[in-house]
């Protein structure tokens, strides 16, 4: 199946393999490089699930632990050795909702892709290699505990959510990592690394037919088990777990993380539109071209502005402001003062212009294209190829209506001092 990204000069090729693995290719012949990502719809939040009707509770951080252990091969060959030999950069990452394995390299594509499929679909866990990994992951945890931004953001999620496991760190804790066993990894692998729960995205200087053929050939030598898996849904209240919190890290200037927890489950708009409108809204209201920013700068509340990010769950979006500032109370009061205000049509149109330009920038970069496709599959289960037209159709009135429906009273404040 092919679909055009109109206005962006790209074509998407899609095929589903007999294993159930979906493969997406966007060729781009004016670059040298090829970027491939193999993603499982499995992240840190999926610690509790049902497999073939049986409930499983696994230790926190297991998706990330599994990611580390996938590079272990029965024949003792380290996938990194092969990728290095082929001049490719390989890596993997885990977030709340996904685990991705990836490589980028302008040569030896076939060998690289086969290696990727082989190491992800042929796990080799032993008690010894699981034990050995713990020291490494514990060092990674310690490194994260020294990163101020990460500490603040993790605490924000922990304090904002009550039930949803997004409140738990992706990496887990020293304790949960220490308690992880080979059996835990086996069952999670079985559940979430079924090809039908995964997808491959390749962008760059490739021929789509060749990609499909390599995957098809590779699958012939593999057998896949089938299991019924059910993810657990959580009843998340609108209230936050803890309204105010302070962490001491001996900072010379405090860092503040201030969030609004928004229930979006009853909003009559597709989720990705809610996201687009919220992004425009918060950028217009609190970004560098806002009355808010002028005020905090003039009042010397905060010199370098505020940034915000939006974290998603199926029922709530969490909008988090981050800033370095000495008078955190005054900053929060000022943020609260503006929340819910309308933005102007002019603001809306300027932001829209920038979004449309950013779509063109995206189409010029194989990493951005790959990311966009991956996010689309995870969020919508399909690739939105008319993204440019969709963004052109965004309406000012729809944004104002959405804002009216939101309740901004549930907030969460984390200050690192």
């Amino acid at each position, binding site marked *: 199946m092919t679909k055009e990204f109109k206005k962006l000069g790209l074509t998407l090729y899609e095929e589903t393999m007999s294993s159930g693995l979906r493969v997406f290719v966007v060729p781009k012949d004016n670059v*040298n490089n090829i970027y491939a990502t193999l993603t499982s719809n499995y992240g840190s939040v999926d610690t509790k699930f049902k497999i073939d009707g049986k409930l499983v509770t696994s230790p926190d951080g297991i998706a990330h632990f599994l990611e580390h252990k996938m590079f272990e091969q029965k024949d003792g060959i380290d996938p990194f050795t092969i990728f*290095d030999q082929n001049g490719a950069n390989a890596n993997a990452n885990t977030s709340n909702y996904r685990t991705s394995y990836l490589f980028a390299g302008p040569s030896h594509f076939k060998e690289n892709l086969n290696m990727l499929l082989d190491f992800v679909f042929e796990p080799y866990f032993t008690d010894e290699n699981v034990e050995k990994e713990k020291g490494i992951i514990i060092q990674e945890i310690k490194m994260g505990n020294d990163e101020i931004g990460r500490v603040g953001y993790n605490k924000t999620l922990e304090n904002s959510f009550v039930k949803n496991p997004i409140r738990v760190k992706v990496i887990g804790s020293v304790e949960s990592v220490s308690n992880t066993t080979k059996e835990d990894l086996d069952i999670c692998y079985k559940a979430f690394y079924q090809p039908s729960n995964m997808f491959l995205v390749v962008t760059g200087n490739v021929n789509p037919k060749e990609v499909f053929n390599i995957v098809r050939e590779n699958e012939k030598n593999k057998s896949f088990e089938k299991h019924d898996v059910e993810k657990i849904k959580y009843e998340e209240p609108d209230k936050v777990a803890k309204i105010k919190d302070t962490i001491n890290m001996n900072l010379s200037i405090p860092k503040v993380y201030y969030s609004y927890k928004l229930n979006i489950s009853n909003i009559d708009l597709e989720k990705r539109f809610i996201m687009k409108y919220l992004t425009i809204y918060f950028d217009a209201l609190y970004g560098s071209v806002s009355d808010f920013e002028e005020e905090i700068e003039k009042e010397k509340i905060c010199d370098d502005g505020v940034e915000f990010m939006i974290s998603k769950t199926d029922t709530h979006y969490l909008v988090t402001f981050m800033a370095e500032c000495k008078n955190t109370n005054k900053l929060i009061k000022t943020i609260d003062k503006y929340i819910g205000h309308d933005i102007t049509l002019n603001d809306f149109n300027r932001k829209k212009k920038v979004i449309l330009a950013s779509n063109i920038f995206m189409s010029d970069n194989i990493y951005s294209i790959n990311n966009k496709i991956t996010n689309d599959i995870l969020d919508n289960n399909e690739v939105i190829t008319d993204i440019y037209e969709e963004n052109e159709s965004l309406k000012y009135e729809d944004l104002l209506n959405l804002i009216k429906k939101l309740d901004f009273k549930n907030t969460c404040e984390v200050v690192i001092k």
Partner: protein
Amino acid sequence: MKYKKHNLGKYNLHIITTNRFKKVSVMINFKRKINKEDMTIRRLLSDCLLESSLKYPSRRLIDMEVEDLYGISITSNAYTSGNYDILSFKSTFLNEEFTEVGMNKKSILFMLELLLNPDASNNSFNKYGFDLGKRIIKNEIDTFREYPPNYAHQRMLEVMDKKSPLSYRGCGYIKDLNKVTPKKLYNYYKSVINEDIIDIVVIGNINEEEIINLFKENFTRLNNNPSSESHFIKLTTKKVKEKVEKSHINQSRLVVGCTVDIESVKEMQYALNFYSFILGGSGDSLLFKNVREKNSLCYHISSSYNIISNLLTIKAGIDAVNKDKTIMLIKKCMEDIKNGNFDDIEIEKARTIYKNSCIEMLDNEASIMNNYMSHEYLDTDLLEDRIKYIDKITKEDVINVASKVKINTIYMLEGDLK
């Protein structure tokens, strides 16, 4: 891709024409011999020029124009390159074929507007923007310690040789910041515009003549471009220095600084690159395999080098109790390369990785510009030439370079949190 250097007398204009990108990038570099006392004022200047200008007297008005110009990005960076201090302004915007006719010119003029007509009157920067910039730089200096990897690296350089420009702090110094006044900043700005060595690079699918004329008409200055000297800094090792400092952090940061007894740019660019890669350049390097995979001592370990000096750096995040063991393993890995105790395949891996990374960089306009400027400033080879030369490197070249690597400084920022 076509590289062309135009000496316009007042400055050099380098034009790289390629139809690979939907965007156009412009980089304007001001450089002069490094002077520790001037570093802070240069950083302040790089910030203040983008905070406000005569035509756009606030960040808000600048950013409004940024949005109207289809989200053009304008950034500044003040950094050291060996013996030189560089103020670099960079702008990236969509080529007008994807927006509106005339936008290329409009975008470049906007960038020049910010650089050439600062927010100043009576030979003095306006106080509001000046104070804001000053507070931002002060915050950066104050918080520098709070990023352990950068701080530990900086401290290693200072322990190694606090007189060397390599150890000057990129964020600047409070005592120098306190001396700057709006008037002094303006005088300094004038001297940068008129006396620094200026190089301008433009890359994209553009008309060369139009770009040359655009700059000729809109950017001139008093003096002709001065000539440049070498950026290269040579370090020497007499005896190994060791230092441990404590900090309230969880993970200890080990930084080992080594000097390499070479001066040839070719050897730095190729044999040393291979050496550093084999030692600690990937997830399959000697350090990664021995320190992380076999002994589980760390999550992060790597080695790197910078062509502006003969310095090679090894970094690792470890538990303090494992310091001696880690250093012992690092030394062992270095010895192994020196004695040729590694497979030939390691050379081939380094070769393919290096070559492919050059090929990949040709996909990225920022990498092309940076490599081109490195060719200009440091006499390194252009990407296209590197791809060819990489084939010539042998195992003997790497062993030879390995024999010239000496540990100079072992620094550890020791975490005292449990």
